[in-house]
């Protein structure tokens, strides 16, 4: 019954994460779209950064969550942890798609191309494929244990892409600019760093909220399915 207690905990605290996320995002969007300045080089179009960077970051954060939940599942074999991993994967796929889309829209006016096979873009596309593969694998496996175990193994293997996505712009020749926040320091003026950090933290909280909601969703679905299954086998008897 530990799962139900955990679900109760999620239900009680989820709203605080949601509220905090909305507050930060409202201020972030206001400063990003209304009060912050245009960039000296890109002009107004730099405002896409305040949505593109949080999307991409959250995608990677969500994949990291999937990775940790997968390890945890293989260790403890707790079904609710598998629900959390599954939830994180769904959210990660959404944010990865959003990161690719907003990046593409930013790329056209700045780079002059919607898409190019540079190392950052290629490794991010591989992150997208990994998540598609993970979720597909889950739909094709009927046995719950197998689904969770094989999924976890796949997610753990796929994690090697994450440092590659992050450091690709530093290690190899790419069109994408290097890291703006690195050991060199912060290369973003305070005026623009404010909306960016508000949105980034806001999105991280939003992700936590989404994870809490989606984990409940998958757990409850699983619960109902189990009931339904038992009912069906009873009928057959």
């Amino acid at each position, binding site marked *: 019954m530990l799962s139900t207690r955990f679900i109760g905990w999620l239900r009680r605290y989820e709203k605080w994460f949601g509220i905090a996320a909305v507050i930060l995002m409202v201020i972030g969007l206001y400063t990003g779209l209304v009060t912050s300045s245009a960039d000296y080089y890109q002009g107004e179009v730099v405002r896409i950064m305040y949505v593109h960077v949080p999307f991409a970051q959250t995608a990677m954060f969500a994949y990291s969550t999937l990775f940790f939940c997968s390890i945890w599942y293989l260790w403890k074999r707790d079904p609710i942890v598998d629900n959390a991993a599954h939830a994180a994967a769904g959210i990660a796929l959404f944010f990865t798609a959003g990161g690719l889309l907003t990046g593409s829209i930013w790329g056209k006016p700045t780079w002059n191309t919607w898409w190019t096979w540079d190392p950052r873009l290629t490794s991010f596309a591989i992150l997208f494929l990994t998540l598609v593969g993970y979720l597909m694998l889950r739909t094709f496996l009927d046995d719950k244990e197998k689904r969770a175990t094989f999924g976890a193994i796949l997610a753990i293997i796929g994690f090697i892409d994450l440092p590659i996505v992050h450091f690709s712009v530093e290690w190899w020749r790419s069109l994408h600019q290097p890291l703006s926040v690195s050991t*060199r*320091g912060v290369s973003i*003026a305070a005026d623009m760093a404010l909306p960016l950090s508000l949105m980034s933290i806001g999105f991280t909280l939003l992700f936590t909220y989404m994870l809490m909601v989606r984990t409940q969703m998958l757990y409850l679905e699983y619960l109902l399915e189990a009931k339904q299954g038992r009912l069906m086998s009873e009928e057959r008897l």
Partner: protein
Amino acid sequence: MAGKKFGIIFSVLIVVGGLGYLAFGRFGENLVYFVTPSEVVTFGSDRYGKKIRVAGMVVEASMKVIPETLKIRFDLTDGDKTIPVAFEGVPPDLFKEGKGAVVEGYWDGDQVLHSHMIMAKHEEDYMPIEMKQAGVKLPTKGLIKTLKVD
């Protein structure tokens, strides 16, 4: 059942294939996104006329617009070697002298890079124009360094 098995194999292949490309295809070395002018100048005749991508910095005061046409000429440098570029078309908005560019085209016997497609390669610093005019410099890797000239 066969469809299911195919589905499982296919979904695993997607992941393993993508990751295998990263790990064993020596992603970083094989996927050379662009070459630099230093490498281009060593090209033999066997590489003439083949599509390449060259990145570098547009040399200050090297750009010449040929009037009444869409042709421009400029020099591209990686800090070591410099090559001339003959471009025809509309360059990107952020294409500027002293800034980075990735030029797609072919290198030919006339020792000129012929191109119809330019991408602007910008740096990772962001600040308001007033700050830039006041001479503020934020830490960046430096465009030439991002070209990874050996």
